[in-house]
């Protein structure tokens, strides 16, 4: 699991690459903690290269979404692969998070 960060104006974009599972979810937790520490509250998670998410990963995403909301911010997703989209539907994450087809649309949503 690799996470790379870039800034687009007031929005932080985290590009996720690899597997988000019980063994690797700490990597995303750390990246999110660093983003909060830098004052980020508007975050796009670009999932183009995220090929796997298990419940351990979903838990990190949920906690992050709750934390963003408590800071009057928001986390949105873009470019979810089909398999991940299915997991989002099964867990109704698609009802609590906005998912966009492109990074541009995700950025424009703020």
């Amino acid at each position: 699991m690799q996470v790379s960060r870039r800034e687009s104006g007031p929005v932080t974009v985290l590009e996720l690459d690899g597997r988000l599972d019980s063994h690797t979810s700490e990597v995303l937790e750390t990246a999110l903690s660093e983003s909060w520490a830098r004052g980020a509250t508007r975050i796009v998670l670009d999932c183009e290269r995220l090929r796997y998410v298990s419940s351990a990963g979903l838990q990190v995403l949920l906690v992050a979404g709750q934390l963003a909301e408590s800071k009057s911010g928001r986390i949105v997703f873009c470019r979810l692969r089909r398999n991940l989209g299915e997991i989002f539907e099964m867990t109704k994450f698609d009802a609590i998070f906005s998912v966009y087809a492109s990074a541009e649309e995700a950025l424009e949503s703020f």
Partner: protein
Amino acid sequence: MTSDPAIPAHDHLRLDADLAELERLTGWLDSFCEKHGVDDAMHYHINVAVEEVVINAIKHGRCHPQAGAIEVNLTLAGDELQIEVFDTGVPFNPLDVPTPELDADIAKRKIGGLGVHLVRSLMDRVEYERLEGRNRFRLTKRISGAKDAG
């Protein structure tokens, strides 16, 4: 690869109750699915379900000793995959875990129960029994993408 759908394909893996074993489990599942032509979507479902069951034993099972505490068997017969997971952890029946509240607002969503919910959603059948001091999970999945079982 020679193949005969009438002959079930079987594979077996023993794991320590250690989070670092997840990589080995994943590689083994990848090999099995690739060898037997299981399509990406089914492969994904299998991977998530097996990870959830195994991780639960590792994190919450208090398996002692940790070495070799978890055993996973895969049997592909025709288009049906049977996944059997044994662990030496404390008794745990996932069927007793209530479905998490999925319709709540984000602030009220709970993080617990998602793993068991995924296992139930992704598999066609989930069975549990306590057998000779071990938890035994039997998960069944219809594999539409499997080329054969040999």
